């Protein structure tokens, strides 16, 4: 296995380049585990990808739930 020292692609920074607060980080982790939508994360993703957000918050949330309804839950 090739294991290298890596930049952690999963670590995000807030838009102004400051590190995120502990509270914000905890809420992000909780959202991910619960599988909840995270519009801030989407905005950060768009910023990092260099384009403006294509979806409003409402549209993003609606699409997120719609996709979630297709997922499988185990027994």
């Amino acid at each position, binding site marked *: *296995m*090739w*294991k*290298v*020292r*890596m*930049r*952690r*692609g*999963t*670590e995000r920074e807030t838009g102004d380049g400051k590190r995120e607060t502990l509270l914000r980080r905890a*809420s992000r*982790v*909780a*959202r*991910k*585990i*619960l*599988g*909840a*939508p*995270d*519009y801030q*994360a*989407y905005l*950060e*993703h*768009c910023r990092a*990808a260099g384009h403006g957000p294509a979806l409003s*918050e*409402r549209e*993003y*949330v*609606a*699409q*997120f*739930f*719609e*996709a*979630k*309804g*297709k*997922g*499988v*839950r*185990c*027994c």
Partner: protein
Amino acid sequence: MNRIGALLLWGGISGLGAAAFGVLALSRGESINAAWLLTAAVCTYAVGYRFYSRFLANSVFGLDDRRATPAERFNNGRDFVPTNRWVLYGHHFAAIAGAGPLVGPVLAAQFGFLPGTLWLVIGVVLGGAVQDFTILFCSLRRDGKSLGQMAKEEISRSAGITGMLAVLFIMIILLAVLALIVVNALKASPWGLFTIACTIPIALLMGWWMKRWRPGKVGEASAVGAVLLLGALVAGGWVAAQPQLAPLFTHTAAAITWMMVAYGFVASVLPVWMLLCPRDYLSTFLKVTTILVLALAILVILPPLKMPALTPFARLGEGPVFAGKLFPFAFITIACGAISGFHALVASGTTPKMIARESDARFIGYGGMLMESFVGVMAMIAACTLDPGVYFAMNTTPAGLAQASQVLAQAGFVVTPDVMHQLATQMGEQTLIARSGGAPSLAVGMAQIFASVTSALGGRTLTALWYHFAIMFEALFILTTIDTGTRVGRFMLQEIVGHVWPRFGETSWYPSVLASSALVVAGWGVFLYQGVVDPLGGINSLWPLFGISNQLLAAVALCVGTTILIKMGRQRFAWVTLTPLAWLVAVTMTAGWQKVFSPDPRLGFLAHAASLAASPNLDAARLIFNDRLNTFVALLFMTVVAVLIVTSLREWWLVLSRRKPALVHEASYVESAYATGD
């Protein structure tokens, strides 16, 4: 120095695990502490993870962090998102763990604690975790494709369609059996039914909150929902004590069946944000916290196990909970927790789209499944802390109990009606007799464990509250599975029929939505109703069918995995997936055969139908029909998998004999931007 340290550490862990297994295996007669079970399990997991999963990651799969994952390549900030591996571990675990690993071990406790525990622990290390890891790896290298798509591309088109049909049928049996567990837990239980009924308005409120009022604020909505849920739990106790209100929520199993069917239909037709998503959040929240609390409580209490290591039913095969001998039925009864085909759907669904780098797949795929096995071991412990007499009285109908009375009496597994009545009163129920399905006995076990914690902390024991909390916790995520399962089944049906009639395949065309939902609900409704009216309790015949189907799905997944390994030129490692595959085929085919053709009417469907042929009972005709239906389903499952295995064998032979080029449909290599290069 470091090397010697590691040697000592892993030598020590292995030794400790072996010693714990020794204690478990050699205990005869005396009561044994749950600590030994936990030690044996945890040491095995540690050794399996450290050595076997590393071998899989390095030598068999050749995971490569330089290779960009789908999450990195298709990052869209929505479903494809590189995710921290600890976070993804939690997410993946929440998606794979459900009622299965909690119920199976409770039922398998009829053989004693040893067979089930051994299967949970050894099965997961060599089978279940390998399956999850393999499918996750395969999907990761194929842009996150689903199991069905992979079967189609790597084996053949017919294999893909067979696999898809298998998934649909399995889903229907699964939903029926899970619904039956809820029905058996809620019948004649006003407290339980009130609490569960309350989850519907609570979920609707949460849905409105996080979609309309404050879009995306799932945390707030879930917190409010959880508080309301606890309120409903306490209120349930009050309702059950009111002579005017209690009858409103006291219903027979048949009535609750109709409610479940209606609920399943409505839930699958409504927009997901209204009922399905909020319920899912609520149950995930409750699931993760309850499992953590249960683990802590077991560690603090370290309860003694009252069930012996082996009961006479392991040898005789006439157990009242489910019929059949240890082989193959212990391995069918515990599907989830040891090896579960359903995980292949999750491991080729959302999870591969979120993995940041390939090496994380080991922790998430293999490690996630080890955690589920641990949940199974905890369920086994909770069930075995019950007095065996109580355990059998709860999980058997009076008819079944009468049949097995002699063996039960010889083994000393008897309980007086007074004791059962006292226990029921303690748990806030009218009766606990014949509540088969595992959930109620698990709830009693959990309630007793939690109650000893609360009383040790100086509070009241709160046993009845804990019992209903445990029931609510299980019913909640079973209902979540019913919501999502009916919906996913509907999509599959629409897709399959859409091949012939394209209009039907449009997921937003209302006539098609209504018709396909009704068909799926009717599918599991038939099996559910049959289980409810079965004089032997239904779980008796439905749970083995579910176990067989789930294990057969695992066989499908392992066929796909083996094919991919062979095509990757890793055939010398193909035993990694072939070993569990061979075991599963042996187990499921034997079990399926016995369920259909065994001359014992308690075991074989056909023999049971024959035994009823002369019966003057009015229900006989219906029971005979059920037996024939079950026969058909079992034979169908076996045929589907036999076809798939033959197709795979042909493909392997063609590739290995170089009659066909070994062409894998892997996504092409893209260098990861996360690799810094040194």
